[in-house]
């Protein structure tokens, strides 16, 4: 087994809020191998974005982070200095965000913002910056790249802005790209294009990708491995095909159930939903976080924090996993 590119072990992120301490991420562990695509799925508010911000070292000031192990590319992220982190960000570790229109600075041209990354990490001079910038824009599929460099973000469409974001994220050939809901704010047709672009770049540069989304369809296409998050915890991890065809965790099962099937002509039934609501992260439920909403829950689930069970490369954090032969 080759050394994992990113290794996160027992990560917890707690926010200091007016209402009390909010544990947004609770004991999360995962790893990403070089060149691999990991999909992280879950509802809004389950902590997936916070996890990625933690990896990038971009948590807000009222957040505190704990982890047993936190390594990227053989560097220990727990003991790294801010300076060192800055070298990584935009360089070997990159991130793109959900809303491309607001993620670009409206006061500066696209070219300016693109060249910034180049100057910061590749120490390129003016002429080569210009050349590289044009190349990058062409690489992400923007036609008429040279003119576009002088455009302002508000002059571009959402899809184009996202391409620009991707361009600046891959400018320095990152080893790992984190994409936080990259297509959620875009039209469906553009979605497909962006996803294709990401896959294409991955193949070309041998880049690892963490794809964060709440859309199971997207993750099915793109990711080789998938991690399902709920209430700040990872409840199931495994090969995408395995998890989606035979889920072990009741939550994953419920999620899959909730995805409407277009071909199902008997769809005169009410759209299924998971009963109950997401728990209050300041006052968490005892034991298993899902137990108030889980059909299989019993007394043990209420009292005990579930251990992680392994079935091959398939891991599940549950006391009564679905369909496991006891």
């Amino acid at each position, binding site marked *: 087994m080759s050394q994992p590119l990113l290794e996160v072990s027992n990560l917890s992120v707690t926010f200091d809020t007016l209402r009390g301490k909010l544990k947004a991420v609770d004991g999360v562990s995962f790893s990403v191998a070089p060149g691999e695509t990991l999909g992280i799925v879950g509802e809004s508010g389950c902590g997936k974005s916070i996890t990625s911000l933690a990896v990038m070292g971009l948590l807000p000031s009222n957040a505190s982070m704990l982890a047993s192990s936190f390594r990227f590319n053989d560097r220990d992220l727990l003991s790294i200095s801010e300076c060192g982190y800055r070298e990584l960000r935009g360089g070997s570790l990159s991130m793109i965000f959900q809303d491309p229109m607001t993620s670009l600075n409206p006061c500066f041209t696209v070219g300016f913002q693109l060249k910034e990354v180049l100057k910061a990490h590749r120490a390129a001079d003016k002429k080569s910056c210009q050349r590289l910038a044009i190349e990058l824009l062409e690489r992400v599929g923007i036609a008429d790249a040279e003119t576009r460099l002088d455009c302002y973000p508000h002059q571009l469409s959402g899809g184009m802005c996202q391409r620009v974001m991707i361009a600046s994220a891959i400018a320095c050939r990152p080893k790992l790209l984190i994409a936080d809901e990259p297509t959620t704010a875009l039209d469906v047709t553009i979605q497909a294009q962006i996803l294709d672009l990401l896959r294409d770049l991955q193949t070309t540069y041998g880049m690892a990708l963490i794809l964060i989304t709440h859309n199971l369809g997207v993750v099915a296409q793109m990711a080789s491995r998938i991690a399902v998050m709920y209430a700040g915890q990872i409840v199931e991890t495994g090969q995408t095909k395995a998890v989606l065809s035979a889920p072990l965790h009741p939550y994953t099962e419920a999620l899959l*159930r909730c995805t409407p099937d277009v071909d199902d002509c008997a769809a005169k*039934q*009410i759209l*299924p*939903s*998971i*009963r*109950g*609501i997401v728990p209050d992260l300041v006052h968490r439920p005892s034991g298993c976080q899902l137990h108030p909403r889980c*059909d*299989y829950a019993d007394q043990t689930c209420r009292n005990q924090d579930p251990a992680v069970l392994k079935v091959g490369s398939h891991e599940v954090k549950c006391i009564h996993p*679905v*369909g496991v032969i006891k």
Partner: protein
Amino acid sequence: MKQTVLINPMETIPVSSEPHAAGEFWYFFRKNRGAVIGLVTIGFFLFVAVMAPWLAPHPPSELFGEALRLPPAWQVGGNWRFPLGTDDVGRDMLSRLICGARVSMGIGFLVVFLSAGVGTLLGLVCGYYGGILDSVLMRAVDVLMALPSILLAIVVVSILGPNLFNAILATSVVAIPSFVRLVRASVLEQKTKSYVIASKTFGAGAFRQIFVNILPNCLAPLIVQGTLGFSDGILNAAALGFLGLGAQPPTAEWGTMLSDARSFIESSPWLVTLPGLCILLVVLGFNLMGDGLRDALDPRLRK
């Protein structure tokens, strides 16, 4: 075998009772320490102002010939009979300051009352009716706002003659444009809302529309501006007093007291520091309260 339940009725979640609007407002106001300090300060000065005749140890205009320019009691040469010292003609500072509170608070109330009253009326009319009336009045407002406020106040006072009442009038005139603008903007915003149009289809007349429907919704910024208008009013009136165009001696008004004290700045500094300090505290109180009100009334600004 696992059970598959397709239809799961949503569990009823208890909804907390809708917080009362005033209660919610008070909660946010209370949380802002500055605003509470402001409120307390204003309360203090209001109290002093109302109780002035009973609180002041001496009549403010009484001259004590034997006690000219005495320093405050804790300094050398001071006398506890005149706790904060006396001025150049022998009047007790403490009493003058206390009565000055009455004058200043009175000024504040009158100025805000007049300017907000007239300004709101004009703003409502302009906003609701629009047309030529609106254009003409707004031009006038623009002109008035183009001139520095003190200048305008000075000119108005010079037309009418320098005394406290005219100073109040002048300050009110200066404050009217901002109210007009504010109310007009609010009215224009509300006019497009559905409830106004709906009310119109029910045959509501202009009067009812303006006062019953629209006005209550313009109150929030109006109240904030009113509070800040207090501080501006007091400052401007004191400035006029300082320039000799407002309250005339022997009336104990803080600004006028400062102007008298100018020549004694080296010999009797307390004559200068004390009245100004009072102005500062009152204005600070109103500003703090105004800020707190603004935060409490505008949900977007809540942290």
